[in-house]
């Protein structure tokens, strides 16, 4: 399989400006991660709130500045790309937002919203051609052409998300980043949008980076799964083997918390609860970032940060595994 995105030692830090008597502080949102994304796959990024998954996604499309490291996409390094290169990236990598309604300008009609990326990135295109493309894309995502002059507030959440998807797809991108794109939707609508995404992926040969905290959906849609904790990769591997044999203690705890839709199993299930909260990304712990909550932590975990190693076909960063 061909690599489409190559991420090496990527760091995204945010500086919190210090006041007169306050020192400057740094949020380590993404703290040195390595992974590749292959063409045509769906990679799921999971982790609890504040683990840096959204910062990573936003960094990949230019909404957050990459502090250091590299992210190679089509021979363009996103960490150092200039605005011209970013325009090339925008043509091929698009983003679908969490809140479908907030992502649409309430002062613009559906046609204007969907056409905006095309008109901006391909200014030489004729208006009629743009309009044809808008209509074709609307059909693709299941919107009817007579809704073209409506405003976003006239639509339901699910339809708004379809408009958002149409806006992303009109550029015919290769990569689609979905940042919690279905978590704001009702369950039935969620299923529709997930099916739509899968259908579009097959039709258009899309690569999807799917960010979610809903492990059920991730299991349904993704080929590979990346587990993040406090800006670091804990485990990365094939979906089936991650769900069947999670290696990292954090992945194990995360997966044990997923409810099972069978009352008999659910009753006897052992949920492995973690103590404490996510440590502050302002001051990540020394050594392994998970050591404050890890039930199996050893001395080495407190002193040395584990590297990602290949164990049983999983990339795992943990000292206790061999």
């Amino acid at each position, binding site marked *: 399989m061909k690599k489409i995105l190559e991420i090496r030692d990527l760091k995204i830090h945010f500086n919190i400006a210090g006041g007169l008597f306050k020192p400057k502080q740094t949020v380590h949102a993404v703290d040195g991660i390595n992974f590749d994304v292959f063409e045509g796959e769906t990679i799921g990024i999971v982790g609890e709130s504040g683990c840096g998954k959204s910062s990573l996604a936003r960094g990949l499309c230019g*909404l957050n500045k990459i502090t250091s490291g590299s992210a190679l996409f089509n021979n363009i390094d996103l960490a150092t790309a200039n605005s011209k290169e*970013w325009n090339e990236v925008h043509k091929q990598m698009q983003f679908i937002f969490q809140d479908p309604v*907030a*992502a*649409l300008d309430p*002062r613009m009609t559906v046609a204007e919203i969907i056409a*905006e990326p095309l008109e901006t*990135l391909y200014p030489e295109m004729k208006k009629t051609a743009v309009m044809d493309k808008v209509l074709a894309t609307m059909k693709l995502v299941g919107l009817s052409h007579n809704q073209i002059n409506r405003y976003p507030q006239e639509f339901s959440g699910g339809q708004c998300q379809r408009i958002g998807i149409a806006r992303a797809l009109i550029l015919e991108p290769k990569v689609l980043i979905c940042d919690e794109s279905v978590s704001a939707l009702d369950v039935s609508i969620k299923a529709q949008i997930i099916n739509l995404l899968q259908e579009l992926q097959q039709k258009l040969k899309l690569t999807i980076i799917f960010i979610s905290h809903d492990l059920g959906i991730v299991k349904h849609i993704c080929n590979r799964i990346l587990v993040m904790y406090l800006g670091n990769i804990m485990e990365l591997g094939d979906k089936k083997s991650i769900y069947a044999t999670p290696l990292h203690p954090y992945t194990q705890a995360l997966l044990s918390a997923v409810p099972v839709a069978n009352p008999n199993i659910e009753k006897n299930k052992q949920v492995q609860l973690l103590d404490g909260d996510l440590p502050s990304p302002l001051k990540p712990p020394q050594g392994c970032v998970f050591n404050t909550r890890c039930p199996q932590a050893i001395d080495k975990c407190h002193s040395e940060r584990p590297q990602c190693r290949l164990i049983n076909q999983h990339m795992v960063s943990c000292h206790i595994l061999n």
Partner: protein
Amino acid sequence: MFIKAKNLNLETPKTKGFWLSVFGRLSKNKLAMTSAFIILALTILCICVPIFSSVAYDKTNWGEIMQSPSSGHLFGTDSLGRDLFVRCFIGGRITFGIAFAAAFVVLLVGIFYGAIAGYIGGRVDTIMMRIVDVLYGIPFLFFCILLITLFGNSMALSFIAIAAISWLDMSRIVRGQTLSIKHKEYVEAAMISGVSNFKIISRHVIPNLLGVVIVYAALTVPNMIVLSAVLSFFGLGVTEPMTSWGLLIADGSQNMQAWWLLLFPASLMIITLLSFAFLANGLRDALDPR
């Protein structure tokens, strides 16, 4: 507006443009429409009455001092025998003029200043807003008296004083709005679509800001009217024989036995203020469809 499907041969239902639908909603609000009509009528009267009236506003008539309202003098006459009807509307001219002009300056400076501070952010924002904070600390009347002692009493000066103090609120409101719009997901979506900063401001930020600004402008106009009245009441700004509603009310309050001297200018002022308040209220509802 860069794309409209009007010219395509599609069976698209005609949906109105944004401002048309706002007007549609506003026109259903009877109170707001009545208010708008009253404001319009008063403006026309202020322009026309002094032009077409047979008596000049400063024509004294010793034979008709302190006459109560009659068919000859609709609002009666004052202590110098001048016709109050004409004086009320020439005063309205001054009051409305100062209010609208000041509101215009406030809109212009306030939006400009606030949008720059909000969009650039960071240190520029901090410095610009601290300047506003400092200006807030200057008492209005003290500021006016200072201006007048320095440059002499004139109408232009009262206009400058009002505008100089009133843009502060507007710039704060615009800055706050810009800050919140800047982080909306649709602005981020536009960034990902490669839209330039200038186009983001003109296409996404300003149209979404206008609703709040228009409502606040409608609320600012009565504020200006009150301020210019306050200035006139203290004898600053407009001077005799020219007059304004504030001066007429001050005059009337000293001659309480001639009730018409207070009643007519005061009612005109109250009607105007209420109309603006109701119009602003209606605009707010009409601009926010949700």
